[in-house]
């Protein structure tokens, strides 16, 4: 885990440094710039999906899907980040407390 974190830290810094340290005054080709900005959308959406219905043996439906649904509602209502996370956790915990998922 530590090695992976070092890779993440060094890699992130290298990408940040490319502009200010190495290539000041240059621009990414437009297509590459656009791809770099769209990547988080694809990855974050995949993280939402896999962490909502992913389990050790493939896909499972449990209390998380209700919690994340509630969190989605909070996002739609423009709730702050901390509230969204709390809603997701609290609703999931509540569903589990009444004995499902």
């Amino acid at each position, binding site marked *: 885990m530590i090695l992976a974190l070092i890779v993440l*830290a060094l890699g992130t810094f290298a990408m940040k440094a490319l502009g200010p*340290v190495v290539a*000041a005054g240059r621009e990414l080709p437009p297509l590459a710039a656009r791809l770099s900005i*769209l*990547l988080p959308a*694809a*990855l*974050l959406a*995949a993280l939402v999906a896999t962490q909502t219905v992913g389990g050790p043996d493939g896909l499972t439906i449990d209390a998380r899907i209700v919690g994340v649904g509630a969190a989605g509602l909070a996002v739609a209502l423009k709730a702050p980040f901390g509230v969204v*996370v709390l809603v997701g956790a609290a609703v999931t915990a509540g569903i589990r407390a009444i004995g499902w998922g």
Partner: protein
Amino acid sequence: MGLAVGAYGLSFGVLAVASGMSPLVATLSSLFVLGGGSQFAFVGVLAAGGNPMTGAIGGLLLNVRYVAFGLAIAPHLPAGRLSRRARDAYLIVDESVGLGLAAPPGQVARRFRVIGATVAVTWIGATAIGAYGGQLLGDPEALGLDAAFPAGFLALLAPWLRDRPGQVAALVGTALALLLTPISPPGVPVLAAALGAVVALRVTPSVTSRAAPSPSPSSDPSMGCDPSAAGEAFLDDALQRSGDTGGARR
């Protein structure tokens, strides 16, 4: 803005510890990575039982945008010693670049640095508080902490869902991830989902968003919603600029 970053850092600290990271490592990761979404993704893969290196690669893919951000802010930073430029590079986050570039000409570098330093200090401090405090919490599943991750990712994703290319990237990414989840090791479906961004390259930014005025960072009601909201003006601008060029090429 400090408040939003603080809440985000607090959640990260709590969840990092809940997924098996020590409070010290969680805090150090905030100091050395300084990239909220990628750290969140890394810890999310750990929590799901995935290989840490898969988490690191996913985090790096999330951070590829910092190359574009760095190139955008670089012309506004005065030439200086290597150490000073390296410090500026470290301060590149969504907020510092997004709000910095929105500053009047001549004040860009100063605002970039002030916001970058504020975000860094808040993020690292909040992580430490969340991580050391999070140790006191009980069973992560009973508390629903496993659902806190996707909830957080959803909040981070929100700014991208306002434009067509972002929606397509998200949709294709989701489909790929769900298809691959039953047949591949944890973490891999998320990496494969990156292809969703490639597919979305073919989609031109929608007319409605192009016509809509860029949200001003100080008055945008979603400001407190997530850390990337501040980078939105930049995001919109970059998406549209590259979309325009793509359109012209066709």
